């Protein structure tokens, strides 16, 4: 029985009664994972028909292929000491790419940090990936954040912020703004997708964001990436409930759990969620199930907290290989062309990396811009004093001193 809100029901609850004292079971909900493609890239016999066209399918595949190569190369660059830090998407490429593919390009993306595939799908140029990782002067973020903290207004990809969970209520607010704008302009609304890990879903901001989105009818898709770990903390020490999806009902929100290794299933799930979100101005929660195959980041070594056996077990379950097999079977992808393309991309990535690492750092003045819209007096003074100081000790600040002198 569903509840109806009224003066007779100020508590806003289901109004049925019971005379039998018994617990609502902690397992009262049991949410299966939606699947289409099996491990060999074949449709399950029971699977529903795919709506993914060839062009989009290939764009998804190409994005995943690119990201895998980029990740490999950048991790190596970190190991070589060329960049300070890196995070891979390994194991979650399908989940991120297919979900973004199911959106409109004008939809907003709030990501956590492991979602570079979404940005790549939107066409973010390779050299800008590099500029960010090398904090050089072409970085859209002006060299202020650690590697992998991408952001691009043009690509509707909100700049990554390290504090976990903060983007969740922000996404609700952003989506509310999209709804408001659509109603003012009398057009169909765009929506927002918000990615976060199963670890971040423990933050208070998760509760705030989902509840507010539900109450205020914001067109936002909450996309929980359950990849089994938050750094070293296994999901079993993160929550006791049935994953993240089962929380949706607590907010009066619709939910879907999907196999995050299955490109087709993720695509269909997000497509359905988006349709619902923009048509009814309602949030939807999607939980995507995958495994964080890589270390948490370049600073992490998972051998300290999980077994090689477990990793091997999941390594076999590769989202890119699965989708590739599907494409080959569809006759949409030629294996040897694919291999040639990979070689080509590897070379492009390496060239871009080499180019980026020689681009100079941002101007010293960027140290004090963007704190406020204008530079206030006290910051201007601090900047001037710093400049004089650097000129006094040019050798101690080699990156900036030479360029300041040039300006003089």
């Amino acid at each position: 029985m569903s509840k109806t809100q009224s003066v007779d029901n100020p508590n806003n609850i289901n109004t049925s009664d019971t005379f039998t004292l018994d617990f609502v079971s902690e397992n009262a909900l049991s949410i299966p994972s939606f699947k289409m493609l099996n491990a060999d890239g074949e449709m399950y016999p029971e699977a529903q028909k795919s709506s993914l066209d060839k062009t989009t399918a290939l764009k998804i595949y190409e994005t995943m292929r690119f990201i895998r190569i980029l990740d490999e190369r950048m991790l190596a660059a970190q190991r070589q000491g060329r960049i300070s830090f890196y995070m891979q998407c390994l194991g979650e490429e399908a989940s991120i790419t297919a979900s973004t593919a199911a959106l409109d390009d004008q939809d907003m993306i709030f990501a956590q940090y492991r979602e570079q595939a979404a940005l790549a799908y939107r066409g973010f140029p390779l050299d800008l990936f590099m500029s960010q990782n090398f904090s050089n002067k072409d970085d859209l973020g002006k060299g202020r954040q650690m590697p992998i903290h991408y952001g691009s207004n043009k690509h509707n990809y909100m700049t990554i912020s390290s504090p976990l969970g903060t983007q969740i209520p922000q996404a609700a607010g952003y989506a509310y703004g999209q709804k408001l704008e659509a109603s003012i302009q009398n057009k169909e609304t765009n929506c927002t997708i918000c990615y976060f890990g199963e670890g971040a879903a423990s933050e208070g901001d998760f509760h705030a964001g989902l509840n507010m989105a539900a109450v205020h009818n914001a067109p936002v898709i909450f996309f929980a990436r359950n990849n089994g770990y938050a750094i070293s903390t296994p999901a079993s020490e993160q929550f006791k409930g049935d994953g993240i999806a089962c929380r949706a009902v607590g907010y009066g929100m619709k939910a879907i759990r999907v196999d995050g290794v299955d490109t087709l299933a993720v695509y269909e799930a997000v497509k359905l969620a988006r349709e619902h979100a923009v048509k009814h101005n309602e949030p939807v929660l999607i939980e995507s199930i995958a495994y964080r195959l890589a270390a948490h980041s370049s600073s992490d070594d998972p051998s300290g907290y999980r077994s090689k056996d477990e990793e091997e077990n999941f390594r076999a379950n590769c989202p890119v290989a699965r989708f590739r097999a599907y494409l080959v079977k569809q006759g949409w992808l030629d294996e040897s062309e694919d291999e040639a393309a990979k070689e080509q991309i590897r070379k492009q990535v390496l060239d871009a990396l080499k180019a980026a690492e020689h681009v100079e750092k941002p101007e010293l003045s960027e140290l004090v811009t963007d704190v406020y819209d204008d530079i206030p007096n006290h910051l201007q003074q601090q900047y001037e004093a710093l400049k004089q100081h650097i000129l006094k000790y040019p050798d101690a600040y080699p990156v900036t001193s030479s360029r300041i002198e040039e300006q003089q």
Partner: protein
Amino acid sequence: MAKMNMLQAINSALMLSMEEHEKSCVFGEDVGYFGGVFRATSGLQEKFGKSRVFNTPLVEQGIIGFANGLAAQGVKAIAEIQFADYIFPAFDQIVNETAKFRYRSGNEFNVGNLVIRTPYGGGIAGGLYHSQSPEAYFAHTPGVKIVFPRNAYQAKGLLMSSIEANDPVIFFEPKRLYRASVGEVPEDKYLIPLDKAEVVQQGEDITLLAWGAQVEIMEKAAEMAKKDNISCEVIDLRTIVPWDVETVANSVLKTGRLVVSQEAPLTGGFASEIAATIQQECFLHLESPIERVCGLDTPYPLAHEKEYMADHLKVYEAIKRSVNY
């Protein structure tokens, strides 16, 4: 011009700003139909509808998180935190997000559209959790502006400027004066700059500096000192970040003496920042140590509120200490 108290002045600012900006929202706990527990937002929902003026669930971190997103989308987001004592659950959203939004993105995104309104301060028998003045926590956070009106006229002009500003602003409203401060306030829009202190009263012998409700206390102390033939220059800082060092320093260069007063506890308060800066700016001109008259370094009490507060008598004593140094 009309006679308004501070709540009416704030209400008028909100009405005009919302009329001007179709993409603007006012939201927070109880601000909707009811018009807020102090009624600062009354009539707004009626006028602008539930989609632009609404109650939120009871979650401050959500209110500001939502506001950050809304502001980033391009909506003038005017959020209320019911009491400044309850702003702390939103501290992460303000300090790590609001304040760093533009910087970290290289100006790809910003939340310059955000204004956080919140009633602050003591003297109303509110005890620990309805009396705090938390401005110093935010003043140590580059990226947000912090504004304090001292009366109804200032409240309207400063709030309208805060809404216009392209930077996020925390707007601290002295709730003790909500109804007590009544004055002539223009009915139309006007702006007051967000980086200028105001010399409220000229004087020669000593400079008294405060913000918000504490300005009135300074004026009262100046009145007392006048009877001792001490001529006080009273300055209302108005904006805590960025603050108008020049106006304050110029005054102290003239008077040679400074008393700063704040409601918050002494240690680590914004008065300390002012003292640190002014001892540097005016070192050779200072005739006596800069005095800070502040709350005690305890949580805000109830039974001994009167004793705890930085009242005019304590300021008066500080003036005398300074002048007789």
